[in-house]
């Protein structure tokens, strides 16, 4: 039994780290919540669709950028699709690069597009390998006779903790920066733990949905908090 418990622990930590590092956002958590005994493979199915879709789109993008005369509209359509599907599964970093990519398309900036293509390929391969690792770990647990749903539940609680410390997150949450401040003042512990947690929180929410004003407030505030906590420790 110990072996299974350890595997489950590792999976929780691994998944949490993916949220912390911004590879995945809350949408992935939403997907996991939609999985149950009647749909036990839901997440794998959706993510597999994403892999297929992304690879197709990356090929199209590579081809389109290799043309003597570049069709930026077409390029933008593909990037838009990729942005959509990555957002649907919670592949936050991929989604983020797609946003810049669309800007480059709009500016008809070839250099920018080429760079963005490199970036998106890189981010895609990273998240792909991480998700494959995650699924492999799940398989190990299942093969050993353990359950993955308890893991999912615990991961969900990790996500809840983020949400609770910030309060319900919504697009209109102008209080987000204040909440971050309040959180930091009540939390105890080592500066680096705070830093990790803070980065995790900020990366966890869909940054791309923040308004520019909100976003810069959060970044400024995070810096303040980190400086403050550095002084304290």
């Amino acid at each position, binding site marked *: 039994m110990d072996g299974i418990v350890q595997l489950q622990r590792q999976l929780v930590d691994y998944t949490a780290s993916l949220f912390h590092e*911004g590879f995945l956002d809350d*949408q992935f958590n*939403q*997907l996991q*919540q*939609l999985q149950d005994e009647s*749909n036990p493979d*839901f997440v794998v*199915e*959706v993510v597999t*669709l*994403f892999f297929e*879709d992304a690879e197709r789109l990356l090929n199209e993008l590579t081809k389109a950028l290799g043309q003597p005369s570049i069709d930026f509209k077409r390029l933008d359509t593909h990037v*838009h*699709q990729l*942005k*959509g*599907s990555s*957002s*649907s*599964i*919670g592949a*936050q*970093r991929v*989604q*983020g*690069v797609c*946003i*810049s990519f*669309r*800007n480059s398309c*709009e500016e008809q900036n070839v250099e920018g597009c080429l760079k963005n293509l490199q*970036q998106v390929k890189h981010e895609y391969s990273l998240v792909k390998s991480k998700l494959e690792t995650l699924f492999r770990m799940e398989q190990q647990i299942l093969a050993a006779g353990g359950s993955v749903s308890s893991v999912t539940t615990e991961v969900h609680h990790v996500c809840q903790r983020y949400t609770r410390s910030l309060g319900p997150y*919504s*697009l*209109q949450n*102008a209080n987000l920066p204040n909440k971050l401040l309040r959180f930091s003042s009540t939390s105890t512990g080592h500066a680096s733990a705070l*830093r990790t947690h*803070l*980065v995790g929180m*900020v*990366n966890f929410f869909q*940054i*791309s*949905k*923040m*308004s*520019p*004003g909100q*976003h*810069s407030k959060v*970044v400024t505030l*995070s*810096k303040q908090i*980190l400086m403050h906590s550095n002084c304290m420790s």
Partner: protein
Amino acid sequence: MGMAAESQFHVLAVDDSLIDRKLIERLLRTSSYQVTTVDSGSKALEFLGLRENDESNPSTPSVSPNNHQEVEVNLVITDYCMPGMTGYDLLKKIKESSSLRNIPVVIMSSENVPSRISRCLEEGAEEFFLKPVRLSDLNKLKPHMKKTKLKDQKQGTAEKLENSEVQQQQPQQAPKSQDPQPESESHSQTTIEQQQQSLQQANNNKRKTMEQGLSPETDRTRPRYSGIATVV
């Protein structure tokens, strides 16, 4: 997929993305709705019994659609950006059809464009969801579906159209206000239409909360993600 014996609600979901169709289907089933998914606006209209080269004049009163409405649809939820017929075009076609106009329509979009949102709401969409859509968003759907179920009873179920539309970004002016079809007023099902219209107006009045002041195409002005991975 025949008529449900219990009063289950049937949703028609329209999206050209396979992933998003799979997602919305799962979300809807989890919320105990019956679901049909199609990948285009024209297929949606076909399913609803309204063919594009329909002979029947849409402005003829009480036209029954060609033999195809054995399956009752209580709500249409559609993506905005689709090749060919957009979600907005589909919305318009539904609202222009005497047989379909009472079906509530919800629009989904991955892009937060205030003018787009208000255009859809003005055209008669009940809600506008930002993608990715969540389970909690679907909680807003029931009241709209119940409205159509009760349409025969001519009563105003209209008390609570959930006005949590504060979540949706609205522009300070409506750049393109499209006039509602004048012919709609001459039809007999006025009760529901009047309610919907007055609700729309009520919504219009409530939609003034615009703290954010987002410019259209907000996507383009957002900072790159890689620039914001917070100080580590």
